[in-house]
């Protein structure tokens, strides 16, 4: 009975955003607010010998300076599951000792009455360091590379089937190339910001985060306060892309300073500080070896990645994570190793792993197709994987071949000359390229609360958040359909840690995780209403069977006779009820290792108890999933124009065909895929964080030096969806789409540039200097 799901309705919070009324973390008007300005290290490695705060402390308006010498002690976080909070740098809780392990690390926080006063005073803090020789330069440290344990969410970092080396030796055609990707910065438009306010033992935090529940759990652990005393809000978030998925020091420093100086404190990072102290994508070097027969069938795939992490935590960019699954090959070997550098710790950034991994693999596929003299699409179809050959499981649904064909049609693939450097449009060289896109369809346990009010409106509470992806909107649609109400009558409330626990906004999991929970909660409430009607002598539905009754247009009625029924509000009013509520938890995870059972007596345990009698939850949880793997797929196509003299690259058109299950809202879904595409364009053509080769500190630390695409860079973009529901992921059939849009994009562009120019650039970004 989908009334609104799939419809391209306007964003429900859109009006607040276009009027400036949506409130982001730094914007809460808190009485008596003080401003905290961080002081960051200006050396790359060493120790802080002394901090002279005297001058700063005397400055007008300064309330105090928080340093390692006077700040509170913190408790080390135990867990590292992002769902329950992950501090980004587990061995570097802020201000706990005198060690400096990267440039731009927190040394102190100045708190003053105004931001101008705090900034001025911060500039007067004198820090004396004992400097040590830092580990600088990625390539300089390959000899120290080691094999890490596991990747994000327990992902394996070493995978093998068959004997890739032996198969490579006997393969008719081989390619063996090295691809490099630089450090990237998320550059979400809203810099990280936190306001913290203590009220006795109770802490309220407004944070720019992709996980209100994670921040609540972490603050509770690290500050040593009960969860119920820790309230976190993130009603609107100015983009995250992974940078606000892990928790960074600003989220701790604000409550620490607020406690120390007995004032509400706001810490809003400067853009320059975001580059060093709030995450990034790691640098990679990927060696890809492919072996194929003359028939174009892959016989061996090797993907060997070196990436880097910091000295204070381990983050593995699992570039090879999709490689064992994406194509059919009897022999596959995937390796990851890590080196440690004196840099801030990397973290997930839009499609961590797949984004850089599909760049290298899909350029390698293009190189192999060229050697085989095969059309790149035909080469991929010839090696299409009908199942996950590594896990030996079926895909829950997969329409990749259709994506290729529709994409080829949209981009005009027939106009492509397989010989590179041959096609001109005026003075410009024309090229076409394509690549496969893929990202796993993650789903994790989620809870929600649904309330139907006697005035005819309904409300959903869920402790997830909308980082700009459209969660408010699509969840309103999900709930409206379950209640049988128009979307105008449904309010979805998110971004509040006191709500039932929802998923973190990461791993493209919110829609698939939270949607079924919200649906089940709403259906649970409706079931209660129906039961009340059935038991009510005055109801036209008295003594009918629940399974014969459905909801729609604000009524409940017989399925086969809509005239027999009544308005929801009549049921409540007649029974003297001002509302009917239900809570539901859908304990489903597409990642085998996650099983979440709430502790006895906790609010979450009550939800689990109630869910045992929720028909929607039971049906969802009983769906057999263990024989399936869940992945989204897509095909990315690019047409580029290259000026052969100046090396300038103009992307003329992008076609992106996505198989992501049910499309919950065509408008927001299209927008999100376009966003991924544009991230991919930035990755391919301009983005790059550079470190000083001598002292290892970030050089390109603002938005004039770190370039992201502007409006003038944007080509015509055609986004299409296959639109076939995934029958196993959830009753809604939707897989998440936050990340797949970037995957394959850089490769499609790089392959198009090769087709245009005959130049194979294996080092991103592809800037004019690399083409002249």
């Amino acid at each position, binding site marked *: 009975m989908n009334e609104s799901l799939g419809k391209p309705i306007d964003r429900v919070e859109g009006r607040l955003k276009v009027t400036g009324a949506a409130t982001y973390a730094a914007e809460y008007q808190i009485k008596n607010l003080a401003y905290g300005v961080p002081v960051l290290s200006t050396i790359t490695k060493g120790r802080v010998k002394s901090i002279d705060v005297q001058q700063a402390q005397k400055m007008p308006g300064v309330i105090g300076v928080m340093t390692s010498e006077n700040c509170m002690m913190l408790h080390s976080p135990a867990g590292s599951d992002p769902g329950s909070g992950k501090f980004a740098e587990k061995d570097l809780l802020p201000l706990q000792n005198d060690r400096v392990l990267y440039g731009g690390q927190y040394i102190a926080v100045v708190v003053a009455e105004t931001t101008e006063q705090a900034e001025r005073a911060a500039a007067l803090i004198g820090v004396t360091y004992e400097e040590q020789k830092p580990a600088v330069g990625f390539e300089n440290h390959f000899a120290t590379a080691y094999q890490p344990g596991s990747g994000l969410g327990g992902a394996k970092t070493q995978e093998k089937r068959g004997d890739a080396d032996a198969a490579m030796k006997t393969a008719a055609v081989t390619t063996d190339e090295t691809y490099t990707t630089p450090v990237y910065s998320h550059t979400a438009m809203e810099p990280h910001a936190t306001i913290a306010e203590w009220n006795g033992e109770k802490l309220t935090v407004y944070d720019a985060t992709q996980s209100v529940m994670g921040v609540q759990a972490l603050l509770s652990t690290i500050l040593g306060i009960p969860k119920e005393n820790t309230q976190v809000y993130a009603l609107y978030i100015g983009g995250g892309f992974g940078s606000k998925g892990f928790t960074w020091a600003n989220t701790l420093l604000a409550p620490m300073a607020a406690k120390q100086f007995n004032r509400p404190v706001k810490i809003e990072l400067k853009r320059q500080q975001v580059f060093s102290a709030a995450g990034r994508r790691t640098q990679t070097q990927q060696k890809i070896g492919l072996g194929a027969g003359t028939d174009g069938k892959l016989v061996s795939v090797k993907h060997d990645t070196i990436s880097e992490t910091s000295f204070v935590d381990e983050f593995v960019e699992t570039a090879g994570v999709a490689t064992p699954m994406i194509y059919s090959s009897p022999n596959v070997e995937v390796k990851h190793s890590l080196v440690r550098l004196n840099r801030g710790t990397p973290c997930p950034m839009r499609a961590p792993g797949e984004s850089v991994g599909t760049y290298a693999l899909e350029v390698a596929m293009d190189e192999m197709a060229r050697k085989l003299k095969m059309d790149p699409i035909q080469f991929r179809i010839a090696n299409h994987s009908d199942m996950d050959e590594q896990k030996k499981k079926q895909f829950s649904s997969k329409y990749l071949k259709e994506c290729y064909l529709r994409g080829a049609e949209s981009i005009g693939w027939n106009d492509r000359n397989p010989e590179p450097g041959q096609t001109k449009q005026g003075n410009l060289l024309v090229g076409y390229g394509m690549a496969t896109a893929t990202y796993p369809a993650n789903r994790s346990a989620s809870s929600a609360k649904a309330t139907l009010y006697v005035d005819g409106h309904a409300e959903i509470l869920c402790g997830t958040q909308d980082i700009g992806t459209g969660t408010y909107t699509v969840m309103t649609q999900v709930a409206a359909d379950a209640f049988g109400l128009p979307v105008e009558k449904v309010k979805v409330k998110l971004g509040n840690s006191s709500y039932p626990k929802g998923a973190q906004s990461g791993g493209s999991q919110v829609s698939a995780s939270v949607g079924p929970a919200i649906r089940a909660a709403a259906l649970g409430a409706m079931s209660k209403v129906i039961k009340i009607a059935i038991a009510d002598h005055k109801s036209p539905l008295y003594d009918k069977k629940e399974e014969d009754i459905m909801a729609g247009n604000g009524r409940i009625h017989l399925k086969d006779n809509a005239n027999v029924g009544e308005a929801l509000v009549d049921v409540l009013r007649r029974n003297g009820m001002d509302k009917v509520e239900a809570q539901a938890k859908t304990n489903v995870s597409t990642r085998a290792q996650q099983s979440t059972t709430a502790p006895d007596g906790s609010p979450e345990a009550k939800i689990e108890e109630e869910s045992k009698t929720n028909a929607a939850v039971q049906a969802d949880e009983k769906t057999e999933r263990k024989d399936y793997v869940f992945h989204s797929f897509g095909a990315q196509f690019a047409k580029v124009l290259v000026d052969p003299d100046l090396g300038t690259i103009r992307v003329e058109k992008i076609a992106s065909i996505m198989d992501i299950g049910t499309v919950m809202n065509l408008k927001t879904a299209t927008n999100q895929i376009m966003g991924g595409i544009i991230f991919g364009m930035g990755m391919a053509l301009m983005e790059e964080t550079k470190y000083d080769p001598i002292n290892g500190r970030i*050089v390109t630390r603002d938005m004039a030096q770190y370039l992201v695409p502007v409006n003038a860079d944007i080509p015509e973009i055609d986004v299409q969806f296959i639109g076939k529901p995934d029958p196993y992921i959830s009753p809604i059939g939707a897989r998440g789409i936050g990340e797949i849009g970037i995957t394959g994009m850089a490769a499609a562009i790089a392959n198009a540039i090769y087709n245009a120019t005959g130049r194979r650039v294996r080092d991103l970004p592809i800037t004019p200097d690399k083409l002249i």
Partner: protein
Amino acid sequence: MEPFKLIRAQDNLQAIHSAGIKQSKFIAGGTNMLDLMKLNIETPRQVVDINKLSLYKIEEMPDEGVRIGALVKNSDLSYNPFIKTHFPMLSEALLSGASPQLRNMASTGGNLMQRTRCPYFYNTDFACNKRLPGSGCAAINGYNRMNAVLGTSDQCIATHPSDMCVALAALGAIIYVQGAKGIRTIPFADFHLLPAQTPHLEHNLRQGELITHIEIPALPFAAKSHYLKVRDRASYEFALTSAAVALDVQNGIIRQARIALGGVGTKPWRSLDAEKALIGASATESTYKRAADLALATANPYKDNAFKVELAKRTLVRALKTVEGLS
């Protein structure tokens, strides 16, 4: 930011008088001054707001030259019909710079005073002789892809960032300045200084002197001129390389030429050598290439910016071909 006193000057003399003291700076658009003050790179104790002065006129001269008030906004100058017709390279240079918002703020005089965007200059954690004389130059052995290849010294390799100034250099503009002792003019070529051993000295203005106007002398053949800018993204970015070019071609022979380069020099880089090579020669690609070789003959590339030498040549050749096509 350091505390400062903000003075709103009502006329030129008040502005000049107020700014006569040390640690006093003018502010007009503020797009670079405030940017640098926030980073503690500029630390004036007194800021003289000159936006109320009457320096907003674009005056066409009888001989088809033009006088541009120092406070004329970059956007107004770029869309001025007289400028678009007579000096298209200037309009194009302005429109290729910054963003519409910044062009609505930035003034003509302020654009002349724009400081380098060298990332090491912009970061007080690094050594920079321009920011702190004697501290060293972190760029020379650092990440220097965006740095200059012309006019550099062992003390500084910072690129001059302006697009507008490249056009003004080619056009041979004259800068009118007013100080306590009266009015004087500075030829454009003499306004900006090479870094040499004193990279912190960037221009020929004295303390308190106010830029009042910029005059572009009549240059009829500049009606066929062009500014070409090459960069990593399509807009809102400083140049990798750029070229401002005007040509007077008659019967296939170049009679007059103006050439200046951007993105490659420590100051807006007019190349008289390249102009000489063009004048009297036939308007062919080989002539252009010879001129381009001469324009970059003294280039001194560093680790990451060697490509600029070749790219600048190609940029210049392309701009010359484009202007030739206009004839």
